């Protein structure tokens, strides 16, 4: 479970994140939805302790990110916005490198890697060097290395960014499967349909604020729009109506 309480982060005079609070529960997919530049990536970066919050608190499985960042990273699987692979290493070596950094033993590493390779259908690229990989192959490899330590909580920054239709469908199925394993899945997106198709709960962020935090159905009901995209536009466009 990931709990975020009143998070603040400024870069100079720019308030990138200004009082964000929400909770992502186990066994659910929580979507962080917002336009580009809303503060989604910065919020996620504070969750996986790449950045320190100016104020506020992040708790992952009850561990405070400010006091024990290494322990927080241990229970997190992260697909960051930057998902560069090591091009001179094979996909397998990329995955194993992260497994070893997590300190898991060889038996576990092998079992976990094989399971992920099957789930992500990437057996054919496993022993190829990652140079020249397609966007889809890169994301698969990046997800496999992010989840190789079997984390309870998974954070994905725009996981379907740049993927074609087939890859996007496969990704959704994969995310649903890890949710069904009881994990806490938190993803960010600026694409309405994606969030609608996947998420149990939607946290809408605009200008560094949380402007809505509901189930998709409640969001539709609250805005009086049957179409989520219209609901989204309404929320972003008329903040004052949602403040309560």
């Amino acid at each position, binding site marked *: 479970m990931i709990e975020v309480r009143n998070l603040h982060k400024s870069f100079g005079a720019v308030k990138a994140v200004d009082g964000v609070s929400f909770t992502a529960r186990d066994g659910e997919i929580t979507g962080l939805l917002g336009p580009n530049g809303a503060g989604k990536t910065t919020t996620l970066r504070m969750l996986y302790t790449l950045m320190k919050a100016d104020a506020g608190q992040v708790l992952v499985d009850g561990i405070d990110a400010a006091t024990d960042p290494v322990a927080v990273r241990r229970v997190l699987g992260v697909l960051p916005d930057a998902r560069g692979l090591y091009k001179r290493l094979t996909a397998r070596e990329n995955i194993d490198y*992260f497994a070893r950094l997590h300190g898991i033993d060889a038996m576990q590493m092998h079992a976990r890697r094989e399971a992920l390779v099957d789930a992500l259908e990437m057996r054919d690229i496993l022993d190829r060097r990652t140079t020249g990989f397609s966007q889809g192959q890169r994301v698969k490899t990046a997800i496999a290395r992010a989840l190789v330590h079997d984390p309870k909580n998974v954070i994905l920054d725009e996981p379907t960014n740049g993927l074609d239709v087939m890859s996007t469908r496969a990704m959704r199925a994969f995310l649903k499967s890890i949710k069904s394993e009881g994990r806490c899945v938190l993803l960010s997106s600026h694409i309405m349909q994606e969030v609608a198709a996947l998420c149990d709960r939607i946290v809408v962020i605009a200008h560094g604020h949380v402007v809505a935090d509901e189930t998709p159905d409640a969001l539709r009901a609250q805005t009086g729009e049957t179409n989520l995209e219209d609901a989204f536009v309404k929320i972003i466009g008329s903040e004052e109506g949602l403040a309560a």
Partner: protein
Amino acid sequence: MNAIFVVWWKEVAENLRDKRTLMSALIYAPLFGPIMFVVLMNVQINHELSKAQGPLKVPVIGAQYAPNLIEALKQQGLDPLPAIANPEAAVRNRDTDVVLRIPPDYGNAWRDGEPAQVEMIYDASQTGTGTPRERLAGMLQNYDREQGAMRLVARGLSPAVATPLVVSERDQSTPQSRSGLVFGILPYFFVVAIFVGGMYLAIDLTAGERERQSLEPLFANPVARWRILAGKLGAIGAFSLLSLVLCVIGFAVAGCFMPAEKLGMTFDLGPLFIGQVLLLELPLLALFAVLQTLVAAFAKSYREAQTYLGLLMILPLLPSMLMSFMPVKPADWMYAVPLLGQQIGISELLRGRAVGMQPIGLALLCGFAVALVIGLITARIYGSERLAISA
């Protein structure tokens, strides 16, 4: 497995697959010095030897005015060439190193017992003219002394009357110390081998990794940043060390192909020398690894880091330049200055002098202390938020 070792092993294995890194660390950096050295030294030594030992070919103008002189010079190894029209232009154009001109009134002056004049025409600003010039001057002086002595004897005087002072030169140099003078450039090549050997790794592991956007996922692992840094520094150091070892061995092998004995020098880099050099250079391995990483951490891109490190390469040049322009008397405190200490220590070793444990210990202590300070600064930069953000 310890995270530091995991990082170290991955960086070493990954970079062993990179052709450019391998070329620079294993071939270009370590072997450039020895190969260039052997080629240049051989060319220069053979050139010098042929000028010093072969017949001295000198165009002579007015040879007919002084047949006895020419005969005497021939016996000393002179090979007189026919007169040339414009000797001044000839020496300036490097057509010949030196020209001997005998004026028409040479014979009259000689017969009158007046000092007879001969002229040596040369251009001292041309390289390589020194040896033939000195040889000709020596031959002329020999003839001068010989004839002077004979004149004194003919007048019933001892030739010793005309030589109130005799200078005996007692050169204290040994074959090995003379070689130290010529091979003084070696410490510089060692330092360059360390620097270039680790340079591409230092750029790749920080600026390169950030540019390829793999630093952020790496930092998402539950490993403290200083451990990641330590592993990377270790990998840089390993490549630098490999490059240095190859360079030292390269010079030891190069010594076998050097006609040093012909110049009265010895060039013998035994295992003891190699061991002492490696020991002395250890702090520089650490120092350059942290310094290069620090610079690479400030650069926004691979290319930028490359530019900065190119400029930083002037640093190892400084002590060598200092030493060649200002002959410095080695003092113990100099071992405390990184780079200078190595330069002096290795120069002493090359001259065949022992360097005690105390100066070596001082060089190690101070070198590692400076490396530690820069390492702490680098660790701070590595811990900053700014470093991890790729875009």
